[in-house]
Structure formats: structure tokens, C-alpha cells
């Protein structure tokens, strides 16, 4: 039976590879790093596939691995900012209230956990329960983070972003 789950897993991964790549890219903002993240997630997922017992949780189970890998890279990236990037980026922070960001750019200003919730909810169309499984936090935390993030996005964009 577990060969069956693994086959489903491989098929699932192949079918959704572009979604995975986009999510990874949204964190690491770099093509090669995003490819690395996707690859590492797949290797990790397959080598741990014995721990996936119920195929109906495959999606959230895999996204959890992918998200962890993405955040690891993201944090590492934050610590090791190359000189030219840091020069280009530093004047940008939206502390200037006159400067308004568009919504897509504003998401990058959130903390990594808030970014995850926003992207999974609005770009990957996940239900809140699914997000809570992916992030390993309880449903109430997911909700409060979501509202907090939406408030923050409103401040950053100056637009009413609630849906």
C-alpha cells in the first residue's frame, strides 16, 4: 500500500511543480535558490515519505516541508545580504508614509510567517484549516495572523485590502 502513496506523491509533485517553484521563489527571490529549495524539499519529502500515512494530507504535508525549506533559505538570505543588494535595498523600507507600495510588493514586507499565510490563502487558495496544518499552528493563531497581516497590508498600501 505504501508504494501506492509514494507513487501518488511523485505524481502530485510532478503535476504541481510550478506552484512549488513560485512559492519558493516568492521567498528567496532568486531563480537558482528557488530551484534548490524545490529540489531539497522533494528529496526530503521522498526520504521521509514513510511518515505520510494518509494520502488526503499529502498536499499540506508537502507544503509544510516546502515552506520550512523556503523559510530556512529566506532567513539565511537575510543574514547574508550581498553588498550590492543591500545598497540597492536599504533606502527602500516603507517608513516613508508618502510612499505607497502595491499589494504584491507589500507582502514582501511582512514577516515570513505572515507572508506564508497570505500566499497560501490568496495565491494557493488554501482553506484556513489547511493553512493551519501546513504551518503547524492552531486555527486561531492562523486567523489572528491573517487579520494582523491584512491590517499591516492596509497600512503599507493605503488601500482597503480586506476581501
Amino acid at each position, binding site marked *: *500500500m505504501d*508504494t*501506492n502513496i*509514494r*507513487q*501518488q506523491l*511523485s*505524481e502530485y*509533485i*510532478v503535476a504541481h*511543480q*510550478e506552484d512549488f*517553484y*513560485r512559492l519558493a*521563489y*516568492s521567498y528567496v527571490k532568486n*531563480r537558482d535558490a528557488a*530551484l534548490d529549495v*524545490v*529540489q*531539497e524539499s*522533494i*528529496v*526530503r*519529502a*521522498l*526520504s*521521509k*515519505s*514513510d511518515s505520510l500515512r494518509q494520502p488526503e494530507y499529502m498536499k499540506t504535508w508537502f507544503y509544510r516541508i516546502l515552506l520550512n525549506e523556503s523559510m530556512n533559505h529566506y532567513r539565511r538570505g537575510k543574514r547574508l545580504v550581498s553588498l550590492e543588494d543591500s545598497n540597492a535595498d536599504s533606502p527602500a523600507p516603507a517608513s516613508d508614509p508618502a510612499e505607497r507600495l*502595491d*499589494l*504584491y510588493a507589500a*507582502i514582501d514586507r511582512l514577516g515570513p510567517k505572515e507572508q506564508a499565510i497570505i*500566499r497560501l490563502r*490568496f*495565491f494557493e487558495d488554501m482553506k484556513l484549516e489547511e493553512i493551519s496544518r501546513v504551518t503547524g499552528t492552531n486555527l486561531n493563531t492562523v486567523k489572528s495572523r491573517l487579520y494582523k497581516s491584512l491590517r499591516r497590508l492596509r497600512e503599507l*498600501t493605503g*488601500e*482597503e*485590502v*480586506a*476581501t
Partner: protein
Amino acid sequence: MKDLWEQARQQYRETPPPEELNFAVASALRAGERKRTHRRTVRRSLSASLAACACFVLLVNASPTFAQAVAEVPVLGDLARVFTVTQYTVEDRDHLIDVRLPALDLAGDTDLEQRINTEISTRIDQILQEAEDRARETKEAYVATGGDPDDFMPIIISVDYEIKCQSQQYLSFVITKTETLASAYTEHYAYNIDLTAGREVTLKDLLGPDYKEIANAAISEEIARRSQDPDNIFFLQGEGGFTSISGDQTFYLDADKNVVVLFEKYEIAPGFMGVQEFTIPLPNG
């Protein structure tokens, strides 16, 4: 303010996936699978609480020279003469092939050893050849219909084996071939050898002259039991469902020397049910 989100969503979707993505995913799938089987082999041997034995088995597998050296040692000889391994990998733009192939080394019986080894290697050669032809055809068709050759998802073939039973008397192992194009399909080839008699065992040897009836009854009963779960669906009789085992039915012996009959994916049930295995109890306990 749906528009705002729609816009952001579109920006998100616009991230172009690079053309290497297909290849990267395929090779990661393969690396992950390799890592997993490696870990599983180690864990399984250890869980038999034969740590020393596990190292031994691994070493035999890893090195034919070591196997040969051990075969000279009388006590260990029985175990050691059984398995050595041929292993190779092919990795290019169109294929990712991983082969880990068992070879038999029966000290006392070169005829049987040769016959089985030849059979294994011809069969695997043929399979790989067919798979490569298929890969080439698929690629040609893909390019002919306007696909970019760089986007072609390499075909992944992996051949591996698993020892199901290894005792003084019996040796049972299953070779699996998995081919992944868009979806994966695995085929199984089983070998069951009676080491004392020096030949391949049949279901008749194990279950007696009424083996067909015994096996059919056990399988039908088990199908009925599994069907009680509404998630399990089998083809009905007359619609390609199970009627009787075939003359060359795939089976192997498990660690407790029980007969396990194996049906490929799609053979008696829809694809999502996967490979179906049935343990047939031996007639007299």
C-alpha cells in the same frame, strides 16, 4: 477590493518557472527515492535485531569480492553465496536510469544459478530497451507537436529488488521496475528458489495439488473483506475483476514463509488501489 488581490495574484503567477524545473524535479525525485530505499534497507535489517548480520548483508551487497571471500568460510557460506549486486546509473537529458540488480551465486548449483541470472539480465535488458524506445518516441512526438525539447521531462526508470524471504531452504525475491513518464507504473518480477532442491518453487509445491482452489478461495474471501470498506473498490467479476490466479501467477514468500500473491496496479482493481497483495495461509498451518 477583489481587483487588488486579482492583480497581486497575477503578478505572483507571472513568475516564470525556469526551463530546468522539469529536470530539477525529476532528478530530485530520483535522489529522494534513492535516499529512502537506502535508509529503509538499513532500518529493516537492524530491526531484525541482527546488527552484525546487517553489516554483513550490506557488505555482501556492496562488494562482490567480499561475498566471494565470505563464501570460503564454511559457516557463513550458506548466506553469503546468495547475493551480489550489479548497479549502474545513466543520467542524461532524456533519461534518468537507476538499476540495482541482484545476481545469484549458488555455490552448489551452477545450472540453476546461470539460468536465473541469464533470465534476469535478459529480462532487464529488454525492459530497459523498451523503455528507451518509448522515451525516444514520446520525445519525438512531443517535439513534433510543437513542444520545446528543453522542457521535456526525462523518463525515469528505476530497477530495484527486495529480498522477501531468505532461509536455509527458501530464497524469495522480487524485482521491481518503475517507469515514470507523467505517471509512474511499476512492474514486479518474482523469483522463488528452493535452495535444498535446487530449483524454482511453484505454488503447487507450496500449497499442494489443489493450489488454485486454495488460492482462489483465499483471495476471493479477502477481496470480499476489503470491499466492505467503501474506499476500496475492486473490478467486478466479468468486468475484468478477479476470477482465478493464472498459471504463472506472480507470488513471493514473506519472512514467515507464507505465500503472498501479488497483482499489479490495474490488474484486478482501479489504479488508485495500487498493487494488491494477498497472503495465502499454508494448508496445514
